[in-house]
């Protein structure tokens, strides 16, 4: 926690933010052959581990609450096949049981952003910017899916493979499937804990993560999404002056709570939401927010404030 705070302070000290913080980049490693399906395979040593924070879903009712979950992700590509090795702590194993009607299986999913310079809404994509997903549930065949918003999940075309094993105190899962040569550029992750009846929105999810070259350089198409050059202090004053908190607060219930917006969203999404608040509506909320007559600089400052706002 202290390290995270220090990182946050470091970000604040920089005049401009040339790239998202390190936790939002997964460095892709290449492998000559097929990437392994076995989580214990030696080839995984080659893929640098990214440690991601998965936040309890809080946008709609039914989230799990509680603490974020740390998930370690590694990515290996061989030709057109991408394999992701995901590891997280989960003390109790909850495997799908065909003799149970009241229990849920542990699960993990990766969500791929569509090509383009604009990342979709991180929660299941949005109309016009569909995401594709790979889902693994303990004891069930893995599924390839697509979605363009809450409740829109459909079966995807591409078959995927998965292999899972229990580690000392959690899961190690490899998901493998085909991807287009230059895609994807961004991924997000979610995990469900069967012990807390995890399913649907009862999950923890990460912000979009850039899938970067081994050098760690941000993909060019995401530079605009990651750009954050505003003045957070001015943004904070503007936030107060415009009365944003009147609606953007959990007790108001009129608009999504923004306390942790910076943990889950990218600057580009926040800019877009300020500029065109009704272009995409977070499910469950009405189109109440006006497009404020703001200068470009104001939008940058507000974005900077929201990105850095302490939870």
């Amino acid at each position, binding site marked *: 926690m202290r390290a995270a705070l220090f990182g946050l302070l470091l970000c604040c000290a920089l005049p401009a933010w040339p790239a998202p913080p390190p936790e939002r980049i997964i460095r892709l490693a290449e492998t000559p052959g097929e990437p392994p399906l076995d989580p214990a395979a030696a080839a995984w040593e080659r893929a640098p581990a990214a440690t991601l924070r998965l936040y309890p879903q809080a946008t*709609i009712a*039914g989230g799990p609450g509680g603490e974020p979950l740390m998930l370690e992700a590694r990515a290996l590509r061989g030709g057109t096949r991408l394999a992701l090795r995901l590891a997280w702590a989960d003390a109790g194993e909850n495997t799908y*049981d*065909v*003799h*149970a*009607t*009241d229990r849920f299986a542990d699960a993990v999913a990766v969500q791929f952003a569509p090509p383009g310079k604009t990342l979709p809404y991180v929660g299941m994509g949005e109309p016009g910017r569909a995401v594709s997903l790979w889902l693994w549930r303990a004891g*069930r065949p893995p599924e390839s899916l697509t979605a363009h918003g*809450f*409740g*829109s*999940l459909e079966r995807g075309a591409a078959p995927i493979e998965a292999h899972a094993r229990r580690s000392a105190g959690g899961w190690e899962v490899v998901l493998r499937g085909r991807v287009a040569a230059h895609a994807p550029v961004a991924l997000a992750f979610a995990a469900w804990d069967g012990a807390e009846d995890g*399913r*649907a*929105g009862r999950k923890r999810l990460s912000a979009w993560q850039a899938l970067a070259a081994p050098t760690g350089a941000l993909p060019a198409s995401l530079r605009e999404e990651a750009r954050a050059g505003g003045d957070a202090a001015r943004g904070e004053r503007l936030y107060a002056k415009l009365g944003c908190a009147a609606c953007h607060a959990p007790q108001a219930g009129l608009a999504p709570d923004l306390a942790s917006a910076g943990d889950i969203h990218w600057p580009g999404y926040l800019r877009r939401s300020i500029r065109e608040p009704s272009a995409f509506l977070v499910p469950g909320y009405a189109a109440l927010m006006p497009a404020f007559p703001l200068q470009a600089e104001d939008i940058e400052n507000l974005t900077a404030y929201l990105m850095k706002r302490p939870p």
Partner: protein
Amino acid sequence: MSARQLGMVIDLNKCIGCQTCTLACKSQWTDRDGREFMYWNHVETKPGKGYPRDWETAGGGWDGARLKPGRLPRLTEDYGIPADFNFEAALFRDSDQPLRPLEPMQWGPNWEEDQGAGEFPNGYFFYLPRLCNHCTKPACLAACPRQAIYKREEDGIVLIDQERCRGYRYCVAACPYKKIYFNPLAGTSEKCIFCYPRVEKGIPQACAYQCVGRARHVSYLDDEGGALHQLVNVWKVALPLHPEYGTQPNVYYVPPLSPPAFDADGKPSGQPRIPDDYLSQLFGPGVDAALATLQREIDKKSRGEASPLMDMLIAYRHGDMFRLSRPEAEKP
């Protein structure tokens, strides 16, 4: 709310607990592929914990405009695992083994048959057939985050789209009657479909058509000549089960009359054996008036006077119990 609503009235004074409806349903819809434990229609003995066990205290339904939380019934403990029996050993070999389930059972759809309540000589019970109520305000439909549940405009039948369902089971928790079942083999939730393929052809639901007691009437609520309108709206002798759950069920029950309880001297007390309070808990505040109307009409009939209500409930002609005709345009 749909444009039209098909409903069912079950006359509890005529239900003999024979489970013909249960079997008619089971053999038609739920005898395989993970549905073995499901009884879209079943008959339970009241008072009792029912099926699934303690469904009346499992939550769900509406609290005003908000869904009430509910819990998911467990397969073994609350529904009961369909048992395999030692047929081979007990029946086909020379042994003294009695016929018994191979695995010990904890519960089943008719576990406490005829148990009831009350002390001798005032013990009492009655049968309560239950199926999906195809509610006007279905809590299951509202609880589904995927809009996988829909209510048909033409007849109000509530269905789960098996292609959309992802087995989240919010509907199972939300249904206060616990009439949605999660199929763990299929990974989706399933329920009574009010025999819609039959209904579309003008054939009554299997449970209703097979009822040997002629206890089930089927018609559209807006069909003024139909039994539903007559029994529910005109005579007000057919009442919804647990109206306080707030879902506005469309299966209605004619509450059971009962013989008088005996007092301490062994004399008939004039109080019904089934306490009015208990029936009111089940069927709401309309019970007293419904029972009074029934008794009045029975008395008329026994004096040889005319009673259109009794004639309808007696159902001299089986075919008269079902009015399923639709306008030409709505016929599939």
